[in-house]
């Protein structure tokens, strides 16, 4: 029953977001603040995650590559899994844990300290002022972070393949360019946009619904991170099925 209530609440928020999108109105300063907070400040952790993920992909496939001498497929193997699955998912989970959790905590704290009521008392619609900039920036930045993260991951894979497997970086790059299509790259970006939207909706929903002081904020953050993770995998399943 509680889960149904949360899903219903999330659906209502999605409806409000759609209603606020026509015509689109975003508060300028709040949007810029969130672009910086969500995107710029996430780059370091995403870059570290991506470079390690790329290396891990190469290490995992390294044994079989060496066994069959399929060095020319190393780039393809790493690139295919990074672009289509591992890149968006790992960056999505990192994004949810960092940005989504922070978003829920901020909105939750605002809720329990009457700041949301203060906005409404000042005739400011909290959905328009707080939620819409967050949804916009989280979709945009998830997209950008996955694009950058994918290429950083490939770089990590190339470096690992060079120094652990002795595969030239040129061969790695050739394999990626020859065997990976634009469709594979776009597949991951569809997921990035969907993940960004889901994380934004879920984190805002739990944040705005926080009750019960500091303890409530903690519970909301926990629910937000778990809910976002589940949403990432469910969305991933459906996009993979539809786009394959």
């Amino acid at each position: 029953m509680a889960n149904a209530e949360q899903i219903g609440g999330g659906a209502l928020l999605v409806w409000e977001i759609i209603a606020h999108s026509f015509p689109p109105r975003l508060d300028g300063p709040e949007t810029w603040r969130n672009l910086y907070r969500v995107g710029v400040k996430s780059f370091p952790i995403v870059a570290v995650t991506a470079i390690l993920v790329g290396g891990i992909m190469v290490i995992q496939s390294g044994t079989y590559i060496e066994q069959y001498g399929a060095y020319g497929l190393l780039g393809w193997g790493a690139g295919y899994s990074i672009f289509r699955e591992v890149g968006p998912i790992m960056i999505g989970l990192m994004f949810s844990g960092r940005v989504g959790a922070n978003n829920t905590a901020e909105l939750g704290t605002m809720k329990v300290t009457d700041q949301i009521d203060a906005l409404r008392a000042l005739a400011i619609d909290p959905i328009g002022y707080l939620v819409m900039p967050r949804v916009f920036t989280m979709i945009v930045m998830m997209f950008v972070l996955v694009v950058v993260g994918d290429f950083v991951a490939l770089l990590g894979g190339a470096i690992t393949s060079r120094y652990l497997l002795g595969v030239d970086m040129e061969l790695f790059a050739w394999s990626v360019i020859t065997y990976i299509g634009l469709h594979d790259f776009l597949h991951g970006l569809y997921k990035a946009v969907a993940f960004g939207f889901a994380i934004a909706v879920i984190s805002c929903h739990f944040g705005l619904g926080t009750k019960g002081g500091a303890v409530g904020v903690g519970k909301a953050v926990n629910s937000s991170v778990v809910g976002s993770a589940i949403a990432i995998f469910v969305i991933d399943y459906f996009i993979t099925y539809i786009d394959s």
Partner: protein
Amino acid sequence: MIVVENITKYHSGRPVLDNVSLEIADGSNLGLMGPGGAGKSLLLKIICALVRPDRGKVYIDDVDVLSLDEIELAQLRFRIGMLFQNYALFDFMNVADNIAFPLRQGEKHTEAEIEVLVKGILEEVGLPGIGHQFPNELSGGMKKRVSFARAVLPEPPIMFYDDPTAGLDPVTSSKIFLLLKEMRDKRGVTSATISHDIQGIKDICDNFALLERGKLIFFGDRDAIEASEISIVRQFWDGFSLDELG
């Protein structure tokens, strides 16, 4: 005129406001008293339609507030200023931006005018030069004064003050009450003030209401409250306790 009719609100099956009815005449200040948890802050939030009651009506200038949609409510709220009990300052803005926020949203002033107005109100509440600081750097009393400044600067015709002097020293409290009185006398602001500073309320309010456990125990003017023989009213008005309240 603000009219509150039979407001009832339940929480976990228990009435936290039980059939409360009162009026606030134009240009007058209603003093709201009562023990903690009596429902005073909740009543103010219901009047602003920040919280919906389970029963009852609220009229502001003959408009049924609770029947308005969000756009109409937003228009109404431009006319209402609210000083929250917990300050409700926006953590991600500095003091100057917090105070300027309603003016910027109203789009009636230039940035230069807003800067002058913000500087002026900060001096008025005894906090010159702190515009660059953030709420987490302020004491409770300072936060209360910044919250007050933000609420009154747009000069709304209706004001609700939830414990405006909590955490303030006697001198600053006195100054704040003088400002409240000035708002009523010079600007004709219609207001309601919640405070445990009974002497302060006595000085600035025209009518008085006392809530206890969600029920309206008393509502009337100064003469009526002076003559009231209800025990809890006497305790609050005269400032002494008879063992347990009521």
